[in-house]
């Protein structure tokens, strides 16, 4: 009776581990679809780093749940922790290198980089504001001269 209960527990644990591995694989598939469909290198890195970090960590943790011996479980858990800690760092390094790729070597100072990043963020905010104003003007262009400019 006790042996049968232990066998049922082992089968349940293996099935649960494989299900978690399946969830992680589906997350990796979602990140692959994002890598295919996103238009820019930075957005592709965004898709890969977030979804795929969670997917690989879940898949390795599920495999650790499905294994039985303690050294296998510890090895898989160590690999999962390693992926979960090093993958965002690698993605950040690669994103910084891509973002600052086209500037010459003479202007590589920390404060200039921060200034340029702040200017980029401010400029995108202005673009959204102008886009919003343009759509408003285009919307009520039936009676010109009535809309307050600015």
């Amino acid at each position, binding site marked *: 009776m006790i042996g049968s209960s232990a066998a049922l527990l082992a089968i349940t644990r293996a099935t649960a581990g*494989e299900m978690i*591995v*399946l969830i992680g694989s589906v997350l990796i598939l979602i990140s692959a679809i994002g890598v295919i469909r996103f238009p820019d290198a930075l957005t592709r890195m965004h898709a890969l780093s977030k979804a795929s970090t969670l*997917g690989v960590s879940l*898949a390795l943790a599920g495999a650790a749940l499905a294994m039985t011996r303690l050294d296998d479980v510890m090895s898989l858990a160590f690999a999962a922790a390693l992926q979960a800690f090093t993958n965002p760092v690698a993605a950040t390094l*690669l994103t910084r290198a891509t973002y600052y*790729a086209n500037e010459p070597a003479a202007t590589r100072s920390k404060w200039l980089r921060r200034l340029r990043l702040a200017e980029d963020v401010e400029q995108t905010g202005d673009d959204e504001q102008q886009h919003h104003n343009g759509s408003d003007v285009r919307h009520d262009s039936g009676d010109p001269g009535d809309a307050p400019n600015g």
Partner: protein
Amino acid sequence: MIGSALSTSIVVVLLIAAALFVIRLIAGPTLADRVVAMNGLLLVGLVFLAVQAVNTDRNSNLPVLVVVSVVGFVGTAMIARFLRGRKL
């Protein structure tokens, strides 16, 4: 039987993801896109090794998994260093 269906579906999902990463690896316009696709292929191979270790209940390639994690991180960091200050 349930475990067999689960492992088959895992392998199918991983193969579709690997095909998409290979498409991006071939068609990526810049070097950064190819690095991203290569990193994704590395992760797919990692999960495939783990699934195979679970299915065959054999632990001879689990250290390979840990080593591949470390080597993938070091390789991505090296390519980021190589890419800095270079025109894309």
